[in-house]
């Protein structure tokens, strides 16, 4: 019952007309250099887009668009496909007018221009960013058809910026009494989040302007955003205008009313920041249809907010048996890691799953294991093992199993 895709591995009698008759591009002259001073993807790639999930939000400016993970390779997310999460819409801010302020428990509150920030020693690091609500629609049951919508609030870039600690030191920060910083955005929502100084002191929190070699995209906070590796995206404050050093957490809307996790006993967990170890098979995945029986490379992404991915196991029988997948190098801390596993599909139903483990020894849980502790109303921090059912028809369906 495989779909009627033309069986391409038998040649027509003499040969394939796409070979025998030389294509136009082999027999004529192509287009000039710098046709685009800034190039675009092929017109044949127009299906590869970020998309909102219909009905998920009531407005388009306090909303989300999901990255098409099912069509991506490697670990870098093309900036044009980076997932979006805005609370009050996005802006394209004139960087020459943007200012960054450091205040609070510092000797002298300071103001920096972009010119000045970009003169300071910068670092470049590959990190994933995941929304705390990624896979949130699936806490109770299957809700969306493809990994774009189940896992697409996830992206990974090379970020360039100045370690926040450098700027705090420049302002004469009180590093013994200052325990938390507040990060604040310059957009309408002026997003605020509390970040522990221990992370800042480690040098990993960046005041970033670069993303994948160029400036941040407007949708991702141009010209300045905070990078808080391993922590949910909402802390990576966009359009960053201010950092305040304090001795207590700030109890902001998006850490005490939202991005709080409802436990079975009716209590809300607050300040749940870390994105725990998680993985998802992106090929094949929900909403796709396999062209034929035979060989496939099952591939996907794994990540952990606590460090490096150590191992990924893959099951094709719904979790009964597992094989350890290959990991692509380099495996970087708080960064996506691509895994893959050889698989010959025999045409029978199969349930594909992946299970990641990080360097702390933490193992990605099944839905059963996760729900046993946290119930199913958390909204945030759903890092359960994802199951894709490959049907005899070749169609792949989002299911929960195990």
């Amino acid at each position: 019952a495989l779909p009627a895709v033309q069986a391409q591995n038998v040649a027509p009698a003499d040969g394939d007309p796409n070979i025998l008759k030389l294509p136009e591009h082999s027999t004529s002259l192509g287009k000039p250099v710098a046709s685009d001073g800034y190039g675009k993807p092929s017109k044949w790639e127009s299906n590869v887009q970020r998309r909102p999930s219909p009905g998920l939000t009531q407005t388009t400016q306090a909303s989300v668009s999901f990255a098409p993970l099912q069509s991506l390779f490697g670990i870098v997310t093309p900036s044009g496909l980076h997932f979006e999460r805005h609370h009050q819409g996005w802006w394209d801010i004139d960087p020459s007018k943007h200012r960054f302020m450091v205040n609070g428990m510092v000797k002298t509150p300071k103001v920096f221009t972009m010119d000045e920030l970009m003169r300071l020693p910068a670092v470049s690091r590959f990190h994933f960013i995941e929304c705390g609500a990624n896979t949130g629609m699936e806490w109770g049951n299957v809700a969306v058809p493809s990994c774009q919508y189940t896992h697409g609030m996830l992206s990974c870039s090379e970020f360039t910026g100045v370690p926040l600690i450098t700027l705090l030191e420049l302002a004469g920060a009180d590093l013994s009494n200052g325990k938390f910083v507040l990060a604040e955005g310059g957009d309408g929502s002026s997003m605020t989040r509390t970040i522990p100084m221990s992370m800042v002191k480690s040098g990993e929190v960046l005041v970033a302007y670069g993303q994948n070699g160029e400036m941040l995209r407007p949708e991702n906070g141009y010209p300045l955003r905070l990078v808080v590796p391993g922590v949910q995206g909402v802390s990576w404050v966009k359009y960053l205008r201010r950092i305040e050093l304090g001795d207590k957490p700030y109890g902001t809307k998006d850490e005490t009313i939202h991005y709080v996790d409802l436990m079975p006993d009716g209590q809300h967990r607050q300040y749940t920041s870390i994105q725990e170890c998680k993985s998802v098979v992106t090929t094949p995945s929900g909403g796709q249809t396999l062209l034929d029986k035979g060989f496939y490379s099952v591939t996907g992404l794994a990540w952990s907010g606590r460090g490096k991915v150590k191992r990924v196991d893959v099951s094709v029988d719904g979790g009964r048996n597992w094989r350890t997948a290959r990991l692509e190098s380099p495996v970087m801390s708080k960064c996506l890691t691509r895994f893959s596993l050889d698989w010959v599909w025999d045409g029978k139903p199969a349930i594909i799953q992946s299970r990641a483990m990080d360097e702390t020894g933490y193992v990605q849980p099944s839905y059963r294991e996760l729900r046993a502790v946290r119930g199913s109303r958390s909204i945030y921090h759903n890092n359960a093992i994802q199951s894709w059912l490959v049907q005899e028809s070749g169609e792949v369906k989002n299911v929960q199993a195990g």
Partner: protein
Amino acid sequence: QAKGGFPGIGRDATPKEVAAWDIDVRPDFKGLPPGSGSVAKGQEVWEGKCASCHGVFGESNQVFSPLVGGTTADDIKTGHVASLKRTDYPARTTLMKVSSLSTLWDYINRAMPWSQPKSLSVEEVYAVTAYLLNLGDILPADFTLSDKNIREVQQRLPNRNGITLDHALWPDTGLTGKSTPDVVAKACMKDCAVDAALTSTMPDFARNAHGNLAEQNRHVGAQRGINTAPPKAP
């Protein structure tokens, strides 16, 4: 830090600059500007600037989840919103979740009204916060909220005790209770015990809810997107 620092980079902020941007209000009310606002004034503000999106009673889910509803007089006593324990309760309103009054004040002040954020006066923020609490039967109609009495009002918030920090999802020790993860899974490799039944599958009627998936996958590769354009024949 570089030897000799970073000459030429950064300058001192002026007091007016700090005042213009340092608007946050903490749970201990650090940052709260002095002032006050009455429920009556708040009703004016609400009906003029908020109700169109959030509903006259804060009950609308047209542009966002309802702000008001789901709390009881008993919750005000216990500081725990009882309906949050129920799995059948339909909504989680703002007043059901909020544990610090500072959060409401700060957020309204920085971000509301949505399309004109930071346009409210200090009095208006006090007033409309008071009115929201009045809509939730937390404050009486003749109340005036101020920096003087806000700590007492905090003690009436229905969900003020409804929160926990007993988890390991904060990237530091100190604030939260646990340092080891709450969920501990096992990495079984062979003949693992699993439930044969699917606990949940994508319902057929939702097949097209996200558009035609054939148009959401590239035209070449190991697979195609499923054509979900026409409803699947039964």
